[in-house]
């Protein structure tokens, strides 16, 4: 099955073409939905088979490349359309196709009745196509193809409801914002790719990484490559400073938020950094920058999420925060921990978003959590799955989120320092708090919506995926049980990924080992703090709702800043966007375009005019004049004859 891995990419493309070209004519929603979901489902099966096949191979043979055809062969640059099936890409592919399939099924029910139904599934399939190119590609260019592709699909899907308004502007504006901010990151990515090619003469992963491991290149080059690639990652994975598009991306339908902005696209940056681990490991300064930015993003996003009132906004900032955790893990050299968190986060975040979608669907499109309350009895299945996800993300012991987040926190202490751990643990506490604030305000307490709204549970086609994801959120962590618990088996996930990250981890020459005691101590502290936050949030937002108003009034300034997301968008607008627009108008347009470029173009035409004006005088029409010229020519010929004699 490994050799047929390209089918996992071709099938979604086929789904896109069928639904895209003929979707409008196929009036039957079920058919469209089945075509869209089946392609992803079959791709998932193929990936599973490839996974088991790889599992059966000895460890040294687990990296295989499947070449489809040569894409470019220009000068010294030879790019194949090749797919790398190794441990890391299989994990990503499983997540993408698995969670993707569940979300496709969910969308069959969620998008019911929408007149753009066929368009939605076509775009979703196109997205899976691009994402699979991204995670399976064996060189930077195919990865970039997928990178751009998912950016495009993100734009198409965010702007799905293209005729609606969204907050202060319109839905298309939100889509454009996502695309443009992503492009800024892509610029960095491109620079990184150019530098890689310039340094290593190739863009193929195996070639580049082997060279990076063995040949000596100045550390500053690695630093620059890592920096540029990371700029791309901040754009795609919504880190500081390019995270501003993710909250606006909530303008799209909820399954889109689940698939793209929680489980898959935003993790592309994490995947890319993890894949290039050897490059980052060769420039430890850059790795520190990655960790710091990840940490800061995690912290600040969590603070913003504490006070948001839109259910999807809370989840959006939560995503930004969790992505920060993943980068923190990568930044301290715990690459497999970062990928582990990608996987578990996909499970519970997708579940959270889909559950939110179920709530929104049941509440007739109301998204303000202040208008929710007491939905526990009205939507039981949604409630149970949602709270399981909330427990998972808050790090309740035994669930998937606990294992992955704790591993990150441990490594941030062991490979980093106590400050990393402290801020990380604080963020975890805030995560627990705002999640349970959300849960309490939505499902517990008194109903705060008026009587015209009749919330109802969602149909099975939507709740079954929720339940499957909930199961995964519960058991998904057991592949990554840390050594202290699993004894001699070690961390299975870590072992599986070890061959991919070994060169990088060796270069980082880790610090000495810390005792198991420290690990258990820190774990206990963070768990207790998180449990406390969960309980506290539950209590405040269920029973003592009136106290909230008073607390709000006490911290008025802090509250407004947080509510307005630290005014980041406004600052960008004033500092970056407006000057650029002004400069473009006055200088680039009026001077460069009008005067210089037009001047050159018109000027060259004037020169031609002048010269032709002079030459024109030769055509006098007077035969005698022509005769004189002919005679002069004859004189010249005579000269030539004389000279040649």
């Amino acid at each position, binding site marked *: 099955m490994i050799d047929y891995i390209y089918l996992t990419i071709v099938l979604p493309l086929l789904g896109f073409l069928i639904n895209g070209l003929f979707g409008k004519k196929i009036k039957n929603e079920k058919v469209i939905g089945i075509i869209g979901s089946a392609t992803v489902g079959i791709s998932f099966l193929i990936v599973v088979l490839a996974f088991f096949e790889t599992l059966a191979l000895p460890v040294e043979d687990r990296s295989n490349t499947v070449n489809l055809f040569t894409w470019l062969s220009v000068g010294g640059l030879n790019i194949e359309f090749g797919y790398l099936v190794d441990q890391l890409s299989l994990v990503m592919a499983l997540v993408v196709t698995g969670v993707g399939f569940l979300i496709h099924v969910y969308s069959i029910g969620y998008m019911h009745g929408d007149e753009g139904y066929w368009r939605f599934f076509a775009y979703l399939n196109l997205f899976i196509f691009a994402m699979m190119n991204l995670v399976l590609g064996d060189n930077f260019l195919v990865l970039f193809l997928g990178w751009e592709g998912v950016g495009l699909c993100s734009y198409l899907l965010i702007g799905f409801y293209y005729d609606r308004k969204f907050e202060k502007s319109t839905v298309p504006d939100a889509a454009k914002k996502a695309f443009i901010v992503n492009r800024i990151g892509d610029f960095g990515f491109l620079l990184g790719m150019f530098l890689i090619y310039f340094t290593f003469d190739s863009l193929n992963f195996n070639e580049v990484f082997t060279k990076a491991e063995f040949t000596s290149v100045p550390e500053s080059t690695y630093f620059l490559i890592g920096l540029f690639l990371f700029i791309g990652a901040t754009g795609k994975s919504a880190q500081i400073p390019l995270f501003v598009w993710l909250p606006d991306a909530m303008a799209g339908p909820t399954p889109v938020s689940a698939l793209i902005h929680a489980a898959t696209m935003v993790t592309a940056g994490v995947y890319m950094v993890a894949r290039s681990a050897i490059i980052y490991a060769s420039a430890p300064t850059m790795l520190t920058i990655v960790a710091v930015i990840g940490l800061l993003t995690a912290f600040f996003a969590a603070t913003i999420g504490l006070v948001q009132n839109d259910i999807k906004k809370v989840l959006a900032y939560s995503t930004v925060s969790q992505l920060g955790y993943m980068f923190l893990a990568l930044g301290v050299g715990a690459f497999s921990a970062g990928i582990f968190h990608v996987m578990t986060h996909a499970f519970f975040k997708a579940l959270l978003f889909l559950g939110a979608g179920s709530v929104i669907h049941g509440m007739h499109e109301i998204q303000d959590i202040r208008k929710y309350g007491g939905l526990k009895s009205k939507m039981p299945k949604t409630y149970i799955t949602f709270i399981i996800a909330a427990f998972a993300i808050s790090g309740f012991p035994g669930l998937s989120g606990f294992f992955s987040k704790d591993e990150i926190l441990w490594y941030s202490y062991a490979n980093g320092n106590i400050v990393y751990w402290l801020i990380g643990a604080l963020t975890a506490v805030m995560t627990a708090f705002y999640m349970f604030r959300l849960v309490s305000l939505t499902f517990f307490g008194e109903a705060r919506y008026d009587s015209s709204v009749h919330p109802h549970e969602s149909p099975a086609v939507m709740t079954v995926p929720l339940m499957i994801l909930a199961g995964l959120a519960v058991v998904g962590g057991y592949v990554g049980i840390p050594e202290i618990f699993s004894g001699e088996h070690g961390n299975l996930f870590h072992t599986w990924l070890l061959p991919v990250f070994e060169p990088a981890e060796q270069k980082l020459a880790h610090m000495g080992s810390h005792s198991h005691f420290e690990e258990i101590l820190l774990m206990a502290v963070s768990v207790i703090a998180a449990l406390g936050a969960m309980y506290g949030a539950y209590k405040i937002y269920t029973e003592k709702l009136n106290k909230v108003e008073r607390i709000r009034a006490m911290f008025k300034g802090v509250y407004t800043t947080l509510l307005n997301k630290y005014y980041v968008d406004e600052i960008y607008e004033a500092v970056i966007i407006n000057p650029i627009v002004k400069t473009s108008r006055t200088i680039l347009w009026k001077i460069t375009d009008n005067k210089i470029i037009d001047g050159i173009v018109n000027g060259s035409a004037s020169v031609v005019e002048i010269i032709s004006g002079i030459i024109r005088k030769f055509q006098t029409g007077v035969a005698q004049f022509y005769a004189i010229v002919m*005679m002069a020519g004859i004189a010249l010929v005579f000269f030539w004859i004389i000279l040649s004699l």
Partner: protein
Amino acid sequence: MSTIPIEYYLILSAFMFSAGVAGVLIRRNAIVVFMSIELMLNSANLTLVAFSSYLGNVAGQVFVFFVMTVAAAEAAVGLAIIIAIFRNKLTVNIDEINIFKW
């Protein structure tokens, strides 16, 4: 029997030819231009006859005979054209007969 070097005749012929060329290029009266052309033809005749005499070959003079014939025909037709143009434009000043000019 010729003690005159042939170059003398050739140089005289060249002189007459250049004079004819100058006449064609400078004069404005169409008939005078025609006469200059006749002058050029005659200079060529002189060359031909000179060579024919010095080589003892009569072919040169036969050729002169034909040149004269053609010159006569050409003069007749050319003058007829001038008369026809004169009827329309009432001038033989070639500066004013600028029908070529756009």
